[in-house]
């Protein structure tokens, strides 16, 4: 276990930007660690990695890691990443976003990034709330859960983010949790290797706001909840349907092949030049 912090610290801007903004018990640090270890394992050069984020708690991640990092506007990181990747396709572009960032204000960019299929890796930290602004309900807050703008219970249905991504055309969709950190690392690795748009939805927790408002206990309790409610997709067939009702599936949920946009655009260039 000693190796883990050593690997992680090697990639952090430790002298420049710490301590970080995240609360004690937050899941985002766990996700950051998993991403770093996946990048380390893939032996990507730090200079070829570009991390792009929007606005929110998870979107603060780029400032702490020693890659090329772009902290952009609310909801738009996938659109920024589109520009970066197209301008220099040799870069490994990883987008860090959250449920509010990617699904509310950035919902349109999200579905179109899925559909367009540019080789981007999108890590979506789903903590079911707007943490940075103080615990308002988000597009992934479950029905009847409490938010600071839903004091009488959230009356909206939550997005099933992974299903949305699949329906929108994403060729690779995986779901992990902050609790299942070893699996998460592998999912990030697989997603990064995938040619085309890949999404890793990470079920995370916000003990400070969502947890407190909904009386879900501290960070440890919330992590235990993740352990108790995640069903590996490989085991889903063996679980009776009534037991699946309040659970969520984890693992690689969807993995298909579809022509990647940058490669297709190279063909557009070849065709345009052929016609001359």
């Amino acid at each position, binding site marked *: 276990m000693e190796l883990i912090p050593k690997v992680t610290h090697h990639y952090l801007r430790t002298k420049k930007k710490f301590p970080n903004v995240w609360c004690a018990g937050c899941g985002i640090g766990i996700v950051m660690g998993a991403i770093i270890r996946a990048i380390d394992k893939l032996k990507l050069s730090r200079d070829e990695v570009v991390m792009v984020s929007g606005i929110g708690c998870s979107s603060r991640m780029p400032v702490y890691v020693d890659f090329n990092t772009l902290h952009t506007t609310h909801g738009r990181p996938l659109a*920024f990443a589109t520009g970066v990747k197209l301008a220099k396709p040799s870069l490994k572009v990883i987008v860090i976003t959250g449920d509010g960032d990617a699904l509310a204000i950035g919902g*349109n960019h999200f579905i179109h990034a899925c559909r367009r299929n540019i080789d981007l890796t999108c890590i979506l930290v789903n903590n079911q709330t707007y943490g940075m602004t103080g615990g308002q309900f988000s597009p992934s807050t479950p029905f009847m859960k409490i938010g600071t703008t839903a004091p009488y219970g959230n009356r909206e249905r939550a997005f099933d983010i992974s299903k949305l991504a699949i329906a929108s055309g994403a060729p690779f969709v995986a779901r992990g949790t902050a609790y299942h950190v070893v699996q998460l690392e592998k999912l990030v690795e697989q997603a990064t290797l995938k040619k085309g748009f890949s999404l890793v939805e990470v079920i995370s927790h916000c003990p400070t706001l969502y947890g407190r408002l909904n009386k879900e206990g501290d960070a440890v309790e919330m992590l235990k909840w993740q352990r108790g409610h995640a069903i590996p997709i490989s085991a889903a067939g063996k679980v009776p349907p009534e037991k699946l009702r309040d659970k969520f599936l984890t693992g690689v949920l969807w993995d298909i092949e579809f022509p990647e946009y940058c490669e297709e655009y190279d063909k557009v260039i070849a065709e345009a030049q052929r016609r001359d």
Partner: protein
Amino acid sequence: MKADPKGVLTGEHYLDGDHACAEGALAAGCRFFAGYPITPSTEVAERVSERFPDIGGIFIQMEDEMGSMAAVIGAAWGGAKSMTVTSGPGFSLMMENIGLAAMMETPCVVINVQRGGPSTGLPTLPGQADMMQARWGSHGDYEIIALCPNSPQECFEVVIEAFNLSEKYRVPVLVMADECVGHMTEKVVIPKADEIKLYPRRYTKLSPREYLPFKPGKDLIPEMVKAGDGYKFHITGLTHDEKGYPVMTWEAQEKLVRRLVEKIRLNADEIVHVEEIDTEDAEVVILSYGISSRVAIPAIQKARKEGIKAGQLRLVIAWPFPEKKVRELAKKIKAFVVVEMNYGQMFYEVERCVQGDCKTLLVPHGGGWVHDPEDIYKAIKEAIK
């Protein structure tokens, strides 16, 4: 630096302003375009989608204008010269990330082929009512550069100038065309590539160890890098220090935002671009830009025939505003007559600069059609009373 001949369609052409904008971008070395279809600017995107791949450039149609502007900024940090094109409603949506481009000091160009507004307004008809939005549209304090072509030929030229200014000052530069100029077809002469001067991106020569992303030079402008060159930079829309890292203090705000404003204000004399017609002996000067500046010409000629000394000060660059030139003329002339397709935007800028030294008259127009030269002529008559 000279233009890459690959992008320069040297020769005499018969083009509309929108197409000429696309050729200007190509000549300027723009190799990335992200946009969303909107009348009356779509012809730029159409031409770009056909022409860019031919020289290895990228065209992408985004899902909306927020995404377009975001991709344009992203591409700039990936190393491309980039631009987008839009009209009123899309321009409103781009304001968010135009502010980010100003904050991140990202060179890029936004063309707005103005139509009648507000809201959906007159999609196929001209307007010039986004001039103040160009200057103040995104929240917070920043300075911008905006140019106003008045012919297809000038669309070509002004887009190149826009790219050069955006590289030199590291600001998003706006080309505020209008539907008339965008859709009128005229002769456009595209010179040879070696006759087109380009301002190269200000890439740093410092090593990653020495380099600070937002440490300005003497002209208040920092040097740039791109992703993948070993600098592992951080850029953010948050108030940041010279390293690029967020700092939430009034001192950091003062240092950064003052510089964003002053890098344009203190260099304004160098940026300003006007055209003067018969102003030497003028008693009345028409101040105008874009299509309105051409509609004013018959009125000026008519007045001259009648012995009224009329002239024109045309804004090729509207922002920064040519304050010194307007003040200087105000001391010599009887009146400024401002002709613009709105109910007073640049007019108030003229009033601010004139400070009562001469009369100021506005010839307003709501857009949808150009001014009647007769109305401009009447205003000239009124001005010399």
